[in-house]
């Protein structure tokens, strides 16, 4: 049954803004993005919202719904009661451009700071051979749709703007882990994860994992294993000594 839902949508720009009230029709099977589109069509034609696939695969429509970082297109209206007011705001970690659209270039900058896949110098493209068992850890991280909800919810930058320079955030620490675990990657990712990308700032409170729409176990499978590898190098004299004595290479 269609009903009129109470919505509060943040409208404004970098200078100022506020939550505005709307009453808008909701039909069975709709998601929050459908309602935002109906708002655009009926009441607020200049409402800015970034979206693309409507299938939870492009990572464009990230926002905060009732204070929780979510994809607009993957949040069903049936999860709210008809009496409930649904509050939609832009992501609160990134600079706002207008309405629900934020400037996520912080993430592109951090992405550029991670050296790309570095295969052995004597291995030509096309000659890459690897076993499934060796690449499967990295493959979990390839599910990332770069919605940046993990970056948005991570309190290291969300609550401390000053950390943005030193901290790349869970998405890009996971990228470093993805390459570090890759059987053909020869670059040494561990020191830079700690020194250049701020892995030590992560206090593994798992919000990145909680909000990931792809259900990637970011903390358990990427961040903690990377922290353990850093501990191998920096904080474990026994492992350090063993690697010197036995001249262990990357195995």
């Amino acid at each position, binding site marked *: 049954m269609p009903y009129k839902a109470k919505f509060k949508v943040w409208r404004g720009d970098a200078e100022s803004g506020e939550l505005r009230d709307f009453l808008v029709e909701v039909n069975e099977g709709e998601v929050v993005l459908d309602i935002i589109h109906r708002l655009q069509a009926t009441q607020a034609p200049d409402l800015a919202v970034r979206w693309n696939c409507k299938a939870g695969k492009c990572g464009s429509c990230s926002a905060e719904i009732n204070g929780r970082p979510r994809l607009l297109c993957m949040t069903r209206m049936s999860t709210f009661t008809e009496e409930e007011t649904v509050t939609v705001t832009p992501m609160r970690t990134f600079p706002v451009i207008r309405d629900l659209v934020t400037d996520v270039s912080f993430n592109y900058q951090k992405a550029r700071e991670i050296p790309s896949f570095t295969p052995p110098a004597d291995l030509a493209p096309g000659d890459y051979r690897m076993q499934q068992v060796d690449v499967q850890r990295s493959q979990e991280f390839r599910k990332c749709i770069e919605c940046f909800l993990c970056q948005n*919810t991570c309190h290291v930058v969300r609550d401390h703007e000053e950390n943005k320079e030193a901290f790349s955030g869970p998405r890009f620490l996971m990228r470093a882990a993805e390459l570090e675990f890759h059987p053909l990657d020869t670059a040494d990712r561990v020191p830079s994860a700690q020194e250049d990308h701020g892995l*030590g700032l992560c206090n593994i409170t798992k919000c990145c994992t909680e909000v990931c729409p792809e259900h990637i176990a970011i903390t358990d499978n990427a961040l903690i294993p990377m922290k353990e590898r850093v*501990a191998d190098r920096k904080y474990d004299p026994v492992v350090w000594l063993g690697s010197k004595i036995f001249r262990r290479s990357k195995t």
Partner: protein
Amino acid sequence: MTSGVGAPTRASISARTLRTDRWWLPPLLTNLGLFAFVAYATVRSFMGKWYWVEDYGYLTPFYSPCLSESCLPGSSHFGTPLPELPGWIPLGFVALPFLLGFRLTCYYYRKAYYRSVWQSPPACAVAEPHASYSGETRLPLIVQNAHRYFFYVALLVSVVNTYDAVVALTHGLGVGNLILLTNVVLLWAYTLSCHSCRHIAGGRLKHFSKHPVRYRAWTLVSKLNVHHMRLAWTTLGTLVLTDLYVMLVASGAISDLRIF
């Protein structure tokens, strides 16, 4: 609020969070659970009595290994290399600091107390109250990186606890034995599900295919690791239950139900 979510370039929203669910409940419950355990463990560790049931060989894990001449006869399964201790030193002082360290530096407990005790953050997308943040980059929190060393000691203590539980079986079988054995099995599960254990077992490898045995070990630990949080809380509960049962039997408040 001029930093964090109140920073000038961000969407101007004055509320610390717009979450409408009961986000405050999990940190509150965590605080209550941790406080209850710490209070109970502290009282029992310093109590200095009702930790050993001679008739059935029950020794509470809070006093194991008991290595001092102050220990009750029979409770020192590994001898008494240490002299009598003043009353303010817990009889289990050899293992207790390491077990405390193991739990304090555990990746799950870190999440739990960072969120609940330190409120950093109290819940996802809820602004934390602190003005600055340096994570685990400085003292004292940089010590969290020593988790693996506490894990090594915790392995030894698990062996000791297993020995205690097995020795108790030589006195017959009672409900206390079942409680001791259950506790030991769960302690092993918690210890082996540790993230450092997962790393040591095989997580540090680049090529699983070159190390099939370690890959198998990593796979098994990974399966346990998924339950690390549940095991962390379950073992706090079983530790208290085990100690409570031994205390009640040792004090004569209840008698042990014997099976044979």
